[in-house]
């Protein structure tokens, strides 16, 4: 009798353990949040759940989602990148200005913008790892500098605050197809940015969960001293992550530039915070060492659904940021308790 009850209690403990393990996943709050937000809007609005509606909220979700993945990886690695938002304008402007001024093929212009992004990312990373200054300050500096450069250089070159006429550049139609076309699927027209986003989610999740590099990312954020002492190339890992966020900015910048055939010198400012919000909703710790790519993607999805859902419900869009702020707080609190719960999960 005693043996039976002991067996039962072990089984029960095992079940509690796996329940705990599921909840310990950093993305668990984001899953709950995404489902909740979807149900909330879909229940009240038919168009919200139609193919056209889904395409409508997947569009902003994908644009923010692309960088939120890179920002999440960087945050898990223990750093911030405040220049990620403004980078979308900088890279678009580099490509646009080079293209319109020199007449070189758009693919070449995009390549130059890509090199520019890698350079800025490397610079951010190098300054952070070689000085140990907080990345918050370093990338705030880069952010402000880029913001100034975007306006200053654009005005200097074309005497206005945007670079237009990208559709006149040689090769535009092929680049437009790759970065800005739409795909018909299940009765809706979906922007190709969604495909890029899904591809990056898969890549990011694989990178973080299934490669050595992913293991290193967790370690440089969780305990860089320990990571270094067991042979993890901590500096290189962090620099790679900064290059990653810069590259994600390049991708968004390219997508937006190809869509509009023009780049506003002021675009992207403020988005860096939304990337961080998405990553935090997705379970990323501000102190690093913990987080999830899928969670960050869901965070961006929540953002897209909320932004468009408010419109579908005919609410004043002024309420959007209140809604988002409340969601962020709720997610952060939930993540905090979930993590404590997981840490206590000992038998």
């Amino acid at each position: 009798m005693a043996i039976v009850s002991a067996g039962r209690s072990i089984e029960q403990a095992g079940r509690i353990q796996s329940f705990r393990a599921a909840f310990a996943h950093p993305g668990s709050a984001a899953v709950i949040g995404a489902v909740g937000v979807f149900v909330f809007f879909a229940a009240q609005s038919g168009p919200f759940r139609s193919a056209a509606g889904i395409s409508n909220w997947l569009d902003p979700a994908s644009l923010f989602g692309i960088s939120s993945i890179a920002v999440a990886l960087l945050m898990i690695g223990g750093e911030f990148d405040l220049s990620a938002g403004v980078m979308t304008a900088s890279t678009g402007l580099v490509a646009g200005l080079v293209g319109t001024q020199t007449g070189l093929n758009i693919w070449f212009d995009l390549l130059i913008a890509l090199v520019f992004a890698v350079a800025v990312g490397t610079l951010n990373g190098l300054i952070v790892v070689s000085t140990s200054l907080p990345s918050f300050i370093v990338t705030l500096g880069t952010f402000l500098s880029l913001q100034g450069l975007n306006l200053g250089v654009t005005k200097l070159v074309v005497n206005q605050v945007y670079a237009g006429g990208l559709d006149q550049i040689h090769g535009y139609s092929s680049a437009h197809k790759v970065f800005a076309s739409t795909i018909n699927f299940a009765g809706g027209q979906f922007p190709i940015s969604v495909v890029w986003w899904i591809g990056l989610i898969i890549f990011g999740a694989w990178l973080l969960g299934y490669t050595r590099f992913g293991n290193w990312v967790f370690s440089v954020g969780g305990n860089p001293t320990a990571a270094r002492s067991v042979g993890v190339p901590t500096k290189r890992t962090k620099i790679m992550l900064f290059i990653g966020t810069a590259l994600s900015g390049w991708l968004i910048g390219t997508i937006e530039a190809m869509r509009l055939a023009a780049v506003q010198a002021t675009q992207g400012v403020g988005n860096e915070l939304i990337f961080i919000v998405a990553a935090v909703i997705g379970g990323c710790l501000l102190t690093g060492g913990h987080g999830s790519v899928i969670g960050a993607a869901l965070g961006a999805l929540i953002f897209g659904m909320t932004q468009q859902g408010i419109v579908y419900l005919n609410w004043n869009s002024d309420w959007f940021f209140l809604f988002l702020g409340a969601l962020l707080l709720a997610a952060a609190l939930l993540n905090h308790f979930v993590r404590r719960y997981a840490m206590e999960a000992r038998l």
Partner: protein
Amino acid sequence: MSSGATPIVEARDISKRYGSVAALTDVSTSVSAGEVTCVLGDNGAGKSTFIKILAGFHRHDSGQLLLDGAPVEFSTPRDALDAGIATLYQDLALLPLMSVWRNFFLGREPTRWAWPLRRLDAATAKKNALEELRRLGINLRSVDQIVGSLSGGERQSVAIARAIHFGARVIILDEPTAALGVKQSAIVLRNVIEARDRGLGLVLITHNPRHAYLVGDRFLVLSLGRSLGEFAKSETSERHLTELMAGGAEFTELQAELEAAPARGAARGAP
């Protein structure tokens, strides 16, 4: 010195200065396979400097470091690690929010498939981690659980098992029981014995003479960067070590004073 075999690591008259401060002066000791050498001392006695020299973090200014009887110089921690000397600091170089198996292979992850598809070989890593832990007599429920959910003793076990797995011949433990309760300390000391019995040399840095005397074969007592003596287990006792550590002469004097004047304390105690 008691056994005829060459020690794995031997320090001879090691000295180290930081600027004008002499952190360590003429300190000697050794550790052999299947032996536990304890380095005892109060805060600031030079224990940390000593292990940092053994671990390759610092170079000594004078004296000799011998590996298997031959002089060596470690210019980086990597050199010491490659020579089979693993150092476990108090944070154990473990990440609390990462799983046991990920921690176990951090920095030396097994992979499969070729680039760009190269990925972690999680199955092999989990199997090896579990086996190595079992060999040290530790049964974890699962190597998927995060290190943060392990007890202090279990964490130490994981760190020791990891060091052994990656070819350590000597493991230096920096105050492994300092932050632990009695029960957890016992687990750690049992691990030390287990590793010793598997033929490893262990250096136990501690300020707890009780723990040291329980598992040690050889004792080096440091005070203000100088050696107060090196003893084999037969040449010392727990009380002797405690007295040496407590500052020897100074405390003996204080003790004598206190014992000579019991009346005053009693008088004050009485109403």
